[in-house]
């Protein structure tokens, strides 16, 4: 319950944070909202010598409209994202996923960028970010670069963010008018999802013009269910079409086996939840 000792710095700018990273290197960990990092430190599963707190960098907070995308600052708390009207209008899938992310206290403190950077495959934001084609803006000593969602999640708890870099904001292409549903399957409310499916679908006149489906906890990273997306695209909306497409939800997935279910069960869940998510996202 008591972390190992560390030193602490709370820079007030991204530049200063990058400088601190450069100085302390792999002896440091960044703390954003700290809602997953602090349990790790309390249980002494990790013991960095330095903690660099991004909490005092105001420029990392906030949500803005940037033409064809909305931009969410990495340090924006979940509770702010969840109640934001821009997000609700243009990236409804994010709003739905945040609504039941963790619990109210964690949503007050935890941040959008921090959760994505943590890259827990059971985290609720990875699959929606993938489905929406989010772009991750990462600052380093040489300036900023942008990484596509498909390239961001590398492995279990591993992202494209380099050792000397900081995730500053996430750009989410507008999906205005798309239906959205985040189907989360848990045994008790305070649990990470055993499996969850993030679906957002554009329907024009009874035809599915495009569908994006992301999977939570079906592998070591969040996954796109591309076979489902392809099976839906261009089809006229019907129960049979959705059901047949959803059957492909676990294609290529390599889900874990644990206390809550083995891999086969998770594959099955993915198909059921995908069907339900797509049906709900298409107004069913």
């Amino acid at each position: 319950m008591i972390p190992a000792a560390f030193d602490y710095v709370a820079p007030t700018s991204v530049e200063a944070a990058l400088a601190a990273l450069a100085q302390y290197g792999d002896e440091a960990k960044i703390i954003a909202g700290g809602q997953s990092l602090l349990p790790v430190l309390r249980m002494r599963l990790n013991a960095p010598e330095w903690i660099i707190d991004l909490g005092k960098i105001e420029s990392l907070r906030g949500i803005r409209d940037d033409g064809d995308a909305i931009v969410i600052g990495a340090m924006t708390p979940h509770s702010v994202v969840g109640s934001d009207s821009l997000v609700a209008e243009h990236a409804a899938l994010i709003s739905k996923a945040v609504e039941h992310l963790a619990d109210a206290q964690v949503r007050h403190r935890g941040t959008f960028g921090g959760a994505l950077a943590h890259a827990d495959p059971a985290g609720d934001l990875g699959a929606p970010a993938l489905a929406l084609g989010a772009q991750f803006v990462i600052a380093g000593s040489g300036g900023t670069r942008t990484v596509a969602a498909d390239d961001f999640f590398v492995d279990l708890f591993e992202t494209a963010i380099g050792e000397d870099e900081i995730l500053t904001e996430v750009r989410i292409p507008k999906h205005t008018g798309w239906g959205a549903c985040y189907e989360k399957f848990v045994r008790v409310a305070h649990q990470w999802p055993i499996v969850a499916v993030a679906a957002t679908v554009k329907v024009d006149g009874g035809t599915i013009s495009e569908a994006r489906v992301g999977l939570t906890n079906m592998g070591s990273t969040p996954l796109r269910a591309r076979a489902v997306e392809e099976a839906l695209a261009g089809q006229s909306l019907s129960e049979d079409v959705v059901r047949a497409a959803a059957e492909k939800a676990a294609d290529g997935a390599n889900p874990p086996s644990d206390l809550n279910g083995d891999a086969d069960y998770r594959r099955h869940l993915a198909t059921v939840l995908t069907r339900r998510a797509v049906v709900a996202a298409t107004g069913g």
Partner: protein
Amino acid sequence: MTRISLNVDGASVSDDVEPRMLLVQYLRERLGKTGTVIGCDTSNCGACTVHLNGTSVKSCNVLAVQADGAEVTTIEGLAKDGKLHAVQESFRECHGLQCGFCTPGMIMQSVDLLKENPKPSEEEIRLGLEGNLCRCTGYHNIVRAVQHASGQAVNS
């Protein structure tokens, strides 16, 4: 050691703390605010819930240094001028506590819940308290206490 200054339950306090000290440990060990308790080490139980700058957080999941400059309200600062907060009163009235260990966190989260949603449905109450574990009450009377505090009819 890092110097922190903050306001806790209406009083200005300032201390040198180790960066690793959790806010809940600071409250309990340095300020003697033992009303706020520690029930787990994974942030599941919510027993340590306090208000940080007006919203509920789990004080085991905040470093004391991160609360520098902040305003913190604990269960001990909820009653004003000797008068219990409506939620405190409702927990007693509706028997929303037994052993009382989860109660400080449960009350602080309920206060936050009602601030965001003054007339919650039973389902909204239950979801709003999903970050707080209780082992005694089966939650039945906790839900009623929140209904009562919100001025709504209480199911039998």
